[in-house]
């Protein structure tokens, strides 16, 4: 199979996945008791049952679930995610406004993870079995084990409240590209990147150790190449294959983590919006964010597959 056909096949496989995600989310959400209309009218004794029925009709929360799903799907296919029930404003505008915030946070977390994981992984592999290796492995284990909401709160407590180094609230009045924003990104970015950094570091170390034991390394050493050249020029390149692909897959973890981390840090991105929308039973917002997230994760995985195939010619596309 050619690379092109492989890519094409992978791309086509994305469609049923997205379809499945949308069906499951839509179904779960609509079968849960409590809809936005009942929330709006529940505490108002003056709204009659008939008015409530009219509201339900208007907001598409009446009728059988399958029909509502089809209506929703046909709108989404033409790029219309519907409107927010409380405010009547277009959901797509909301998503576009929140998306850059989440991307900025995710990117920061991702860069932080890579920047920490790769040097530490190399260091641990080269010094395998020594104190530094053990220490970095313990750190990695704790990094994976720390729940991110707890880490986030701890960072706020120590760096914001005790030391007063960082603000608690996000920079609501600063544009995202302002250099000052970095200061605000640091704590949430570190929180979101820690788990990713830890797992990345472990993979980096393992594949590096494996490569270091390969015969071509012995050959290179025998030829009298300096250790630095052996490690950085030959071994690193080969061991990066699995790390690069893993880094792409970690996007899913970062996206999932953003829901919790954004809530903890009050970060105005898609994750905190999702939590809010679920609480308010904003069907259209929840669905839109889920779809956007699913697309991001699927794309990242797709990219990982392709990267893997491109980077390692030994992989067969089937």
């Amino acid at each position: 199979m050619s690379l092109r056909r492989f890519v094409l096949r992978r791309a086509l496989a994305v469609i049923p996945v997205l379809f499945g995600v949308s069906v499951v989310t839509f179904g779960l959400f609509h079968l849960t008791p409590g809809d936005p209309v009942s929330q709006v009218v529940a505490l108002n004794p003056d709204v009659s049952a008939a008015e409530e029925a009219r509201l339900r009709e208007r907001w598409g929360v009446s009728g059988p679930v399958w029909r509502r799903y089809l209506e929703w799907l046909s709108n989404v296919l033409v790029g219309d995610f519907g409107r927010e029930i409380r405010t009547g404003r277009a959901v797509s505008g909301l998503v576009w406004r929140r998306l850059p915030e989440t991307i900025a946070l995710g990117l920061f977390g991702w860069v932080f993870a890579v920047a920490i994981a790769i040097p530490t992984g190399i260091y641990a592999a080269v010094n395998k079995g020594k104190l530094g290796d053990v220490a970095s492995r313990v750190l990695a284990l704790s990094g994976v084990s720390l729940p991110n909401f707890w880490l986030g709160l701890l960072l706020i407590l120590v760096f914001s409240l005790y030391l007063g180094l960082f603000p608690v609230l996000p920079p609501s009045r600063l544009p995202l590209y302002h250099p000052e924003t970095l200061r605000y990104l640091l704590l949430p970015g570190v929180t979101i990147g820690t788990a990713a950094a830890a797992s990345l570091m472990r993979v980096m170390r393992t594949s590096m150790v494996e490569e270091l034991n390969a015969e071509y390394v012995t050959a290179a050493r025998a030829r009298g190449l300096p250790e630095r050249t052996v490690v950085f020029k030959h071994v690193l390149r080969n061991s990066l294959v699995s790390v690069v692909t893993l880094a792409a897959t970690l996007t899913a973890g970062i996206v999932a983590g953003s829901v919790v981390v954004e809530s903890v840090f009050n970060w105005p991105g898609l994750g905190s919006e999702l939590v809010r929308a679920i609480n308010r039973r904003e069907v259209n917002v929840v669905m839109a964010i889920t779809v956007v997230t699913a697309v991001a994760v699927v794309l990242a995985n797709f990219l990982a597959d392709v990267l893997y195939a491109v980077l390692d010619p030994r992989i067969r596309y089937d």
Partner: protein
Amino acid sequence: MANRHEAADGGRRLDRRNLLATIGAAGTAGFAGCGGQGATEPSGSAGSDSDDDGLFPLSVRLETGGKDERIRMVELIAESLQQTGYFETEVETYEWNAYLDRVINPTYRENGYLPAIGLSGTFNPHSFCNVIHNSANVGACCNLTGISDPELDELLDSARYGIEVAEDADLRAETYDEIWRTLAEERYTSFTHFSVATAVTDAAVHGFATWPFQEGLFGYALYAPQDEQVAWIDRERRAGDADLADLVTGGTLTGAISTNPGSFDPPHSSDTTSTMVQNLLFEGLVVNDAEGNVHPWLAERYELRDVRDVDRTAYEEYMRVVGTTAEGAVDADEQVIARHPEDDPAADDEVRVLLPEDAREAAADGTYGMWFRYELHEGVEFHDGSELTAEDVVASYEYYENSATAPQTFDSVLAAVAVDDHVVDVYAQVPDAEAERELPGIYVLSADQIADVEKGGIDPREGVTPIGTGPYEFGEFVDEEYLEVSRFDDYWVESRGVAEAFAWFDGPDAFPDGPAIDAVEVEVVPDDATRAGALRNGEVDLTYDVASGTLEDFDDADDFVVHAVEAGGYDYLQYPVNVEPWDDPRLREAVNHLVPRQRIVDNVLNGWAEPAWTPIPRIARGAGTADYDALEATVKPLNEYDVERAEELLEEMAAEYGESP
């Protein structure tokens, strides 16, 4: 609103089974396991089965949702019942919205469960009794267990409507006292506690005070001459060290609020946060002080010119016949001001209704319940520079038609009519003892602005800047992030001077003519801990809705001040009076004596609430009782924690039902 609780679908499925069990039991011998608990009770075990023959131990299922504190409260009550040995309790908790769906349902009353919920009241004493006891509110908010007592219904109506109470405040207070005594004796409901509203400020904020109801938080603290209330910022001194004479003007107050102010269009929003920020921008014809007394505001003066002894049938000749929809609603595009009391849209194909134009005609012909005349101040400027006239007031009433808050507004308002440029007549449909507060209860908007926008269209996110007459004008708003307002330079009270503007003002000379603080910046921060952290870190000067445990810390700290005021919120537990054995008043009396009100306040709410010894809080005492202390003295003994009395009653019932535990 906390949403950490599982929406137990299992609980839903249990309903039907329990319902059947209840009906079955009620149909046989007059004993009922109150909802059976068929799904959870171990059945057919080899041990003693004697329990099955008597009433006790009685299975009780308490249900609640929402705040953690409410759930802990219900668990405490359940434990208190359990300890007597007469009850097998079970507590079921739901996510708030799922819970509302569950309990605000006409069939819920048949389950035999005990629901607990929290509502917020107002200065109107009706808000503490009518919604939860009037049979008209069964299946709606919030007569959850279907209390249906014709005598009580009549008593409730007679306390608010009719010429007698409208003209005689003493009679009205006595009628309410009778309601409170009836409720205390019947015990359809156990009120547990009244909420205390709290706000925490940095010590640099001086003269701050909280309004009894949360929606007034900012506007009230910043400038309220009716209570001689004004806040200012002075970072050199600490709150309490300075008084009015040291007032410093200028500065920006930063606050953190928990939810997004979703709307800037007053009639099209009913959430607390929106009202809270609208308070800064808009004003009404009158204003309430912290005790609920009404003072003229945009109206220089007002008077009640006439009261007529009519009910809604008086409008018969002005009514039109309109159809009804399949769902049983009135099919009319215009606001239905009133419906003929003999017609029922759910049952009839056609109903007689009063529409706005006809209502004005009726008022002009002299058919009305009450007639108020409001004389507006001259020279009041809107934020866009135009002058307030009677047209703006009339247009504002019309803008409230068919809005989210229309049902409340047109519950009492018949029509608003401009007499000349600065005089407006407002008519009530029937004599209404609450009319003085309720009739002028709208924000006055600019007629020019509302002529240009669709209903609900005053929305800065759509490019429509809200225009009012208030002390602050709209600055900037980013959805879910922050809001900025700044002082309005041509604020009418300021240009005129407070003593000049308000004949009723008798405060000190040092009291400023307008707010002292230049600008208010509000951040939207949903997470309680983050909000508290931002305050502690000096990023904001003010926040509210802080967990009661954290409040203690702020209270102990020197750099912060906790402001607390008894607010209108109340929590209650309702008894399923339609299901045996809860129809027996002795059982309700016993359970009521087992509700540990003081412990709920002390242990669950850390003291930040008032135990509900009466069904009405002290702040609503104005219209709601002739003598609050006397009422409390009469009613409190009926609501005190008293295990002995409870056990005595339960023992008596057990003997009667043929078995003791």
